């Protein structure tokens, strides 16, 4: 079965650089979520999209932005990177139908800021 695809899997950037993370949800899934997980931490919600519109916003820094495109893939843009942005970034998708609430996570992008 198709799963959530994230690219790249690993990314190394320097401070103050920019990074773009991509997420391709499971086919027919119309909702995408982005999470950030620091070392030894639980995943923290950043932002979500439903039908290409931002649906919810969590602890996402102003330096980050995201969007969902017409083919439902999503991109997380991160600017002015800081050392503290080093983390695993997960994308998850789900189908927003009654009774379907579980989220399917991608393998993550490991971002290292040096």
């Amino acid at each position: 079965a198709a799963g959530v695809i994230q690219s790249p899997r690993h990314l190394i950037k320097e401070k103050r650089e920019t990074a773009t993370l991509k997420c391709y949800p499971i086919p027919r899934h119309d909702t995408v979520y982005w999470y950030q997980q620091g070392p030894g931490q639980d995943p923290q919600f950043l932002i979500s999209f439903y039908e290409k519109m931002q649906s919810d916003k969590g602890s996402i820094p102003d330096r980050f932005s995201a969007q969902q495109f017409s083919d439902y893939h999503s991109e997380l843009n991160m600017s002015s990177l800081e050392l503290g942005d080093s983390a695993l970034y997960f994308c998850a998708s789900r189908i927003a139908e009654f009774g379907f609430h579980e989220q399917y996570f991608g393998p993550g992008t490991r971002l290292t800021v040096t």
Partner: protein
Amino acid sequence: SQKIEQNSEALNIQEGKTATLTCNYTNYSPAYLQWYRQDPGRGPVFLLLIRENEKEKRKERLKVTFDTTLKQSLFHITASQPADSATYLCALDRRYGGGSQGNLIFGKGTKLSVKP
């Protein structure tokens, strides 16, 4: 604000025993609660969802209970195996009045180690 607590950071048990993990929450009345499994460096994997009107849900060797009065969920793995070793996350899913559903709020997780 909502708060989720998982009773222990780590749980070590012997193969074949039943593992019981606890999730408590405060300041919230969720419509449902979810459990995920996470292996190191990988994304969480959905295991079970239990709704507020359900007392218990089972799936193979897994069982989840939900006590909305105590604001607590218990997650059991029976006949545990070394392959069950992972971090188990409890998560709440907020429901909004319209449009898409809410995001997940995770507990800190319990790292389960099953020794042969």
